[in-house]
């Protein structure tokens, strides 16, 4: 559905994105992940034909961004980072305007509006002036706007920013539900969001794609290191000689110490929970907790992005 091919965009001397390449299948929800300033918004602005890239190209729904931007725009729903709202209009007036400029046939406008309003959960506020709405509702109006023309492709730039936790959950559910019927690209720097909503992740850092995989796949990839959380009743340096007995342990760290109970995070190359437990007990140390923890996407993200910074 979407093919992005070596997109590069320079702002003056500085490359905002450099050779970004990825594909999105029809009905897929793709997460663009990266820290602020990584080039997510730039990528999205190019895909929405808001601005042209310096080089490279992209094809959306079979249309090239250089040759037929109009055709792409017809099949596109876009929610920019700041929802593009006219704060002096009422919600219905605004949606009516958007429906007109998005070429929704005249007789279908009322039904298109009511369905978008329902999907975005705006039923209670349709007659309110947008400027009087809360941030969360404004974001929803932005989302309703993107859904109005029943687009093949939805591009959402940080759709959950500024929402309260309950609204975030609702919007994520909505996005998940939109996949399948629509092809969705969403950008975020909040990792749980990707884990919860996206079928695939493209991680961008400093304008370059650093990884792309399913959320599970990415976790797997970094499975080389195993993390074990260990809580013991020990004092001082008692644990250190025990750890040093295992060559598999690459790193350990005292995370917390409360009422004589120490919490360690141990990184190992393989799962040694059984042996570790034995060793602890044999040394007459009380064992409180022992479990392994797979790396969350958040950590992968830190991993991937901090590496670049160090280099």
């Amino acid at each position, binding site marked *: 559905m979407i093919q992005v091919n070596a997109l590069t965009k320079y702002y003056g001397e500085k490359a905002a994105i450099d050779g970004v390449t990825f594909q999105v299948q029809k009905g897929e929800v793709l997460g663009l992940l990266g820290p602020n300033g990584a080039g997510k918004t730039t990528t999205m602005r190019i895909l929405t034909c808001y601005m042209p890239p310096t080089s490279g190209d992209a094809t959306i729904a079979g249309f090239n961004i250089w040759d037929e931007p109009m055709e792409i725009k017809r099949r596109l729903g876009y929610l920019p980072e700041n929802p593009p709202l006219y704060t002096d209009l009422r919600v219905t007036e605004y949606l009516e305007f958007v429906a*007109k400029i998005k070429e929704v046939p005249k007789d279908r406008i009322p039904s298109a509006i009511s369905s978008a309003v329902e999907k975005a959960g705006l039923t209670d506020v349709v007659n309110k002036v947008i400027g009087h709405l809360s941030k969360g509702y404004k974001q929803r109006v932005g989302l309703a706007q993107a859904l109005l023309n029943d687009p093949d492709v939805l591009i959402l730039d940080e759709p959950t920013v500024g929402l309260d936790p309950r609204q975030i959950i609702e919007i994520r559910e909505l996005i998940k539900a939109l996949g399948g019927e629509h092809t969705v690209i969403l950008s975020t720097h909040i990792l749980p969001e990707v884990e919860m909503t996206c079928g695939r992740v493209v991680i961008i850092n400093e304008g370059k794609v650093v990884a792309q995989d399913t959320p599970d796949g990415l976790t797997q990839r970094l499975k080389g290191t195993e993390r074990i959380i260990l809580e013991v009743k020990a004092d001082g340096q008692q644990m250190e000689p025990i750890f040093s007995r295992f060559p598999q342990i690459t790193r350990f760290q005292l995370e917390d110490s409360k009422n004589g109970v120490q919490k360690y995070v141990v990184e190992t190359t393989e799962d040694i929970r059984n042996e570790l437990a034995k060793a602890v007990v044999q040394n007459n140390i009380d064992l409180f907790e022992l479990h392994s923890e797979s790396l969350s996407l958040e950590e992968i993200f830190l991993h991937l992005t901090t590496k670049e910074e160090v280099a």
Partner: protein
Amino acid sequence: MRKTLAIFEKEMRHFFYSPIAYIVIALFAVITGVFFYLYLSSFVQAMIMDMIRSQQFRTTPQKFNVNLQLIRPYFWNLALISLFVLPLVTMRLYSEEKKNGTVELLYTSPLTITNIVLGKFLAGLFFYIIMLIPTMLFMGLLFVYGNPEFLPVVSGYLGLILLGGAFIAGGLFISSLTENQIIAAIGGFGLALLLWVIGWAANFAGPGMASVLNYLSVINHFEDFAQGVIDTQHIAFYLLFMTLGVYLTMRSVESIKWRA
């Protein structure tokens, strides 16, 4: 066409949902009203003085012509006030969209730049015509109590609308260059004033330059309309001016998109 109309309609809503429209309309009505009163009073006074004089010295009273001595200078006055007020109409036309980020919606919708710019220009022009309505009521009074010629009034308004269109096209262009409304207003006013006084500079320029400057002066082309003469040459000038303004706005919008 439908999309241009959608933009037009949206702009009209912006005008009338914000207090600016009412302030501008009220301001324009009050100022033009006061001037109308003053012009009318001095016209009537001159007539009475002449009557008294003619009775004292047993001379025949002068002929007073409402069109020539009241309506014509009043049209000039309206043009001048428009010069001051129109930048307030055009200042937000484009810069507000840039400031609020709503350009992202416009540029990612299946709209052409022509749709956007033309819709905005027509909205500005239509708003100006609404602004002129109170002055038409003042003129109406002259027809109720006097007997002026009708056609020069029509030509005067045609001239005003064309002149206003030129100012609006220029102001829209300035507005498309900045996201700051104040700068857009000052710039629009500066441009209009410059084009107004450029004819004056013609007095001090060489013969070749003088004719160019005279042609460029937006106000020189207004003279005939105020006098009741509709000359296609002047209509062409204003239409050309508006086209140029709209065209430059389109190019500026496009170039900003590429520079972004």
